């Protein structure tokens, strides 16, 4: 009887040990977050725009969103469609305005209107730029079946948008 008790007690001890082993982590927690953060270069000559200089957790504190729409509010409609369309617009803009955008592409939606804003370089002639504006608006409004507007700002030099060098 007494031996039985002892063995039972031992089993309990072992089980407790197992629980404590599983429940407590003794290694350091891995909190490595890399998205939207830039490595400092040795020469400190890597240019960052304001958007790049602020990591994602600064959204709504120091910088704001690049997509403005109501699909993310409570009860919003067309959540996935809006996200996919925004991604498509971004890809299309980057490809069409090759090496011209020096800022992020800002997409604002009001009702069925899509307004695309951003900063471009003045490295092509105004005639080409007007052509690109018309081309983009026409094609995007045909694909997305929404009136699309381009609201651009131009800068003479790339360095105008540089916020800091790291």
């Amino acid at each position, binding site marked *: 009887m007494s031996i039985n008790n002892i063995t039972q007690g031992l089993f309990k001890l072992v089980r407790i040990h197992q629980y404590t082993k599983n429940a407590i982590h003794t290694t350091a927690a891995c909190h490595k977050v890399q998205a939207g953060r830039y490595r400092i270069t040795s020469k400190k000559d890597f240019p960052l*725009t*304001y*958007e790049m200089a*602020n990591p994602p957790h600064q959204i709504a504190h*120091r*910088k*704001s*969103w*690049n997509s*403005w*729409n*109501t*699909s993310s509010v409570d*009860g*919003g*409609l*067309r959540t996935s*469609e*809006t996200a996919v369309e925004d991604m498509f617009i971004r890809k299309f803009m980057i490809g069409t305005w090759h090496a011209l955008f*020096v*800022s*992020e592409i*800002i997409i*604002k*939606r*009001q*009702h*069925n209107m899509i*307004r695309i*804003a*951003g*900063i471009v370089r*003045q*490295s*092509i*002639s*105004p*005639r*080409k730029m007007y052509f690109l504006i018309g081309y983009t608006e026409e094609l995007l409004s045909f694909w*997305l*079946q*929404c009136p699309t507007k381009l*609201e651009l*700002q*131009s*800068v*003479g030099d790339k360095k*105008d*948008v540089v*916020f800091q060098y790291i």
Partner: protein
Amino acid sequence: MSVLARAFDKGFARNIPKSVSFYSSNSERIQEDEFRVLNFKATRNQNLQAKRKGYKPNVLPPRTTQMPVDQDWGSVWPGPRSFHPATVPLPIRQGYREKGAAPDKYANAELMKIPNFLHLTPPVVKRQCEALKKFCTPWPKALDTDEKCEKYFPIEVTFSNYCHSSPTIRDPLARIVTLKIKLSTLKLNEHARDKFLRLVGDRYDEKTDTFSIVTDRCPTRKQNYEYAMYLLTAVYHESWEVEPWEKLKSEVDMEVYDWNNSKSKETIEELFKKEAKDVENINEYVSAINSLMNEGESKDTIYNYGLAVRKLFNFPVTAT
């Protein structure tokens, strides 16, 4: 061009080597702002990749430098638009810098992101309201107070419109219709009111005396509205109908104790051998027994009941 033309004129065209095409010879003359020409005629010495020079456009100074102080802002910025530093003559800054001033308005993407209300300045709003005024009709003079509105238009219908930033104007929640009416505005007698309340159940709010129906089973708002009106009509007429089985309702089924229909009244009439209303001190007794039966037994109701019974039968009233 003129040199070439002369050459053609003199018949030298045949002597021009094949490798020199019109476009390649003329490539330097093509201005930078022209689109490049795709040449299908592949030739060897063609200078396809003309060295691109850095394009320097002559950019005009921003509009803000030429704006008069008393300009009409509504026509400068007529509609909603992203911020543009060359159009807005305000020294705005946006952003955060740990040391030094915040970034200024030129090439500032943050200012382009945030929605602005530059198209809705007070004078513009006033102007738009003036323009819309001719489409408005005056409020009926007879309905000057809320009480009158409620009296003449007792039914209140509520629904919601939703604005989304999406190409569709449909929202499933827009179909829901709420109909509210004060029960006191309906013509109901005691029986009909009782039946009405039993039929509508918890759709009736006792505190505000309001009966409300929410309809959302039909796909469109119009259908839901019509369904709500139909329900109201149906419930109203149903509550006025007296079914044969309703006469079988006995004293036990009554929701409120009414002395006039009770066994107690019969007994009193039998004891006193006259009509109940002629009995002395009967009113006090009726109110006491009603409160005892409806409010439940408590110290006060029992005491009052005892007092009323003693008075009714002319028993000595003693302090208990």
